[in-house]
């Protein structure tokens, strides 16, 4: 029973050694940030930062950090620092260090020393084995600091001595050429080493042992979470920044500024003119826009919802309320889950093979609607079923005990209670299909940058006739554009050079932005709906 030292119930205030370890963690964070900055080319590695070239700064900091961590580990082993280490750093850590040093040894042997295969394999095994042993055999304080610190020092020295200097280039020598340059390699290696050392320092801060591991792991998990959020923020912010100029080009307010619209027989001018969303692409436009694509997207969604929602909710009602739980419901569940994960391009293929020949043998809005409807269907079934299962059986029992029939119960109790979940699910699903490109590429794509006059007018397109199919709507049977498709064609076809769109890049980013706005709008509404219902339930 090693390490069973009695820990005090209440620890004293932060000790100096803890402060040192915390400092090391902070330094690692700084180093990580610096290396990210140079990966993203905010600073180049030759730029002077605080008087020294970036490369030297990174290298120097790595050496300092490496030594700090090793010193801490050794100090702990010698008893200068009060810690609570386990007898070993553990298999996972040892394995990871072994692997890292295996790679380092192999690369140095083969690339720097130029040894042959046998040579580098031996070198790899030696360094890897040594790292494994160093981390597995001694106590945890040595085992988790020494290999990490040594790696940082090694990398730092390599950078400082210029073995990997600013002009360093490693051609992988593959037939299809690829190589690593210093601009990329140095920051990435630095980032990696700083993560490793930061982790070791965090462990040291926690005094190793259970608490040390806890803190070490938390540092990494928090970093991961922050990165994901930062990435999301970056993506959206970047698109917004790039897209805003194009989106609001020519925006004007004022009475009569906008185009004329006719509502319920009254014609009036909108008080706002927003060319990008009110125009198509046409010769005489001052500012070109994507109105047909926006309207196309809206109709697509409307059509898909009209198709999928009744069908999906109906199916969910049947399998939840009527069918006995057994084979049949299982099959339906597997089928719906399977459908939900089916790649969208496969839905596109299906639409191409099944719908297009049956709907006037051409790509059409209707085919696009139905294809997206097929995609939406499983989600509606799944979410409706989930929300209906979440309706407590007590409600059903209570209703049955009042002598109320099943369908009445479903209609008056189950569906209303499940409505929040269903609505939320549908809105989120709509967000997904509104952004889909692949299916409509195969079933609906029309002209790439249609003029405003070619905006679909589904409502106005209905015609009655006396022969089957009685009701026709040529607007539904024609291909039109949709935002994701418009963006796709703008990317791939480079349309614009010959479509008299002047600032094509601005136009593309604005299209991306408005697509993002439309889709994220659906998501935001969906999520907000969920919060609304949830808070409402909590209040009641």
């Amino acid at each position, binding site marked *: 029973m090693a390490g069973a030292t009695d820990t005090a119930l209440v620890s004293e205030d932060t000790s100096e050694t803890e402060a040192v370890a915390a400092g090391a963690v902070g330094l690692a964070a700084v180093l990580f940030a610096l290396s990210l900055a140079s990966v993203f080319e905010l600073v180049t590695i030759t730029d002077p930062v605080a008087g020294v070239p970036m490369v030297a700064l990174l290298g120097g900091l790595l050496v300092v950090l490496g030594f700090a961590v090793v010193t801490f580990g050794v100090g702990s082993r010698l008893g200068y620092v009060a810690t609570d280490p386990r007898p070993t750093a553990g298999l996972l850590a040892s394995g990871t260090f072994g692997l890292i040093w295996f790679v380092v040894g192999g690369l140095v042997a083969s690339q720097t020393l130029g040894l042959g295969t046998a040579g580098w394999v031996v070198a790899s095994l030696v360094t890897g084995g040594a790292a494994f042993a160093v981390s597995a055999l001694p106590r945890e304080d040595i085992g988790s600091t020494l290999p990490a610190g040594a790696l940082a020092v090694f990398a730092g020295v390599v950078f400082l001595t210029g073995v990997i200097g600013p002009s360093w280039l490693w051609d992988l020598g593959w037939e299809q050429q690829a190589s690593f340059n210093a601009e990329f390699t140095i920051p990435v290696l630095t980032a990696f080493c700083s993560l490793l050392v930061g982790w070791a320092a965090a462990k040291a801060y926690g005094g190793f042992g259970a608490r040390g591991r806890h803190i070490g792991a938390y540092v990494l998990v928090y970093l991961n979470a922050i990165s994901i959020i930062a990435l999301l923020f970056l993506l959206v912010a970047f698109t917004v920044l790039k897209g805003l100029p194009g989106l609001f080009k020519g925006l004007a307010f004022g009475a009569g500024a906008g185009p004329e619209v006719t509502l319920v027989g009254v014609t009036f001018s909108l008080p706002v003119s927003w060319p990008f969303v009110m125009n198509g692409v046409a010769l005489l436009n001052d500012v070109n826009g994507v109105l047909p694509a926006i309207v196309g997207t809206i109709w697509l969604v409307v059509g898909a919802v009209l198709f999928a929602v009744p069908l999906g909710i109906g199916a969910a009602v049947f399998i939840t309320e009527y069918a006995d739980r057994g084979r049949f419901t299982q099959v339906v569940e597997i089928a719906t889950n399977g459908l939900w994960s089916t790649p969208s391009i496969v839905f596109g293929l299906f639409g191409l093979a099944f719908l297009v020949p049956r709907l006037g043998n051409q790509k059409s809005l209707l085919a696009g609607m139905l294809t997206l409807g097929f995609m939406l269907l499983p989600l509606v079934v799944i979410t409706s079923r989930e929300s209906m299962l979440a309706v407590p059986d007590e409600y059903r029992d209570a*209703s049955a005990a*009042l002598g109320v029939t099943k369908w009445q119960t479903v209609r008056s109790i189950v569906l209303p209670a499940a409505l929040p979940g269903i609505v939320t699910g549908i809105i989120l699903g709509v967000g997904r299909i509104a952004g889909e490109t692949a299916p409509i590429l195969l079933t609906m794509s029309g002209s790439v940058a249609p003029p405003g006059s070619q905006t679909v007018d589904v409502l106005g397109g209905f015609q009655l006739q006396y022969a089957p199919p009685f009701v026709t709507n040529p607007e539904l049977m024609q291909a039109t554009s949709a935002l994701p498709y418009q963006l796709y064609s703008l990317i791939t076809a480079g349309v614009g050079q010959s479509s008299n769109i002047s600032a094509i890049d601005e136009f593309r980013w604005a299209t991306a932005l408005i697509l993002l706005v439309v889709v994220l709008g659906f998501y935001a509404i969906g999520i907000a709906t969920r919060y609304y219902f949830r808070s409402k339930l909590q209040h*009641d």
Partner: protein
Amino acid sequence: MSETRQTTDDAQATADSELAGGASPGTDQPLEVTSGETRERTREEWVEHEFEGEAKLSVSDLDVYYGDDHALKSVSMEIPENSVTALIGPSGCGKSTFLRCLNRMNDRIKAASIDGSVRLEGEELYQDGVNLVELRKRVGMVFQSPNPFPKSIADNISYGPRKHGDLDTGLLANLLGRSDDDAVDELVERSLQQAALWDEVNDRLDDNALGLSGGQQQRLCIARALATDPEVLLMDEPASALDPIATSKIEDLVHDLAEEYTVVIVTHNMQQAARISDQTAVFLTGGELVEYGDTDQVFEDPQSQRVEDYISGKFG
């Protein structure tokens, strides 16, 4: 106290099939012991309860299985009209199962299969062609935890009659001028009065019923059941989730209801059973009805040793 210990210890030694070490059964008591209870044969006469007037419900030889699990074993029992009948017994003894047989709510449990006969005023409930909807209108039910619908208080009350088509309040009815709005108001008031809830909620009939306190919710559920004008009211531990005040209100209510309705109530609280019921049926582990009779008699002088043990708190 140490005697109690002794009994349970013995019980443990003999009856527990899980035990690896085979302790000797040696007991010097005349009764055998089983799962913490004294063992004895159930006698027919213990469950014969004489009463004046008609039997509202008569159950004979009722067996219920959940899959292979025999949850009720040949239970026979007559329940008199306009009285409160309490069902007591340890957890899992089949009280709820029995209760649900009385309005065929057990039909809703897929695993349950039922054998035997239950008659409501002489009419067999377990035969083909029984109209379940009609049956459940006549035999109402209130559940253990209050389960109002997530609707307004008034809608909760009028729900049953509306769905039965007795009241018409839809949009269409309104448009056609056929709406029974007045009748609805009257019904709501009457039912809430009966359930002693009117005074508390009459100014917020359109509020969501989920905003009521637990006790109010449970009374609302009773009012909801009363609104369909049943003859029998089944209650499955209606007060188990409630605080003492709410409980005592419900108890008073049950007492009052017995004037017009036949009430059958399950409870795990013996004091409660003693307080409110006219006759008491005791079920014990294994789904047997062990004793049934006047409440006073059952509590003060039970005929079965096991019932006595149970009532005096030796197990359960």
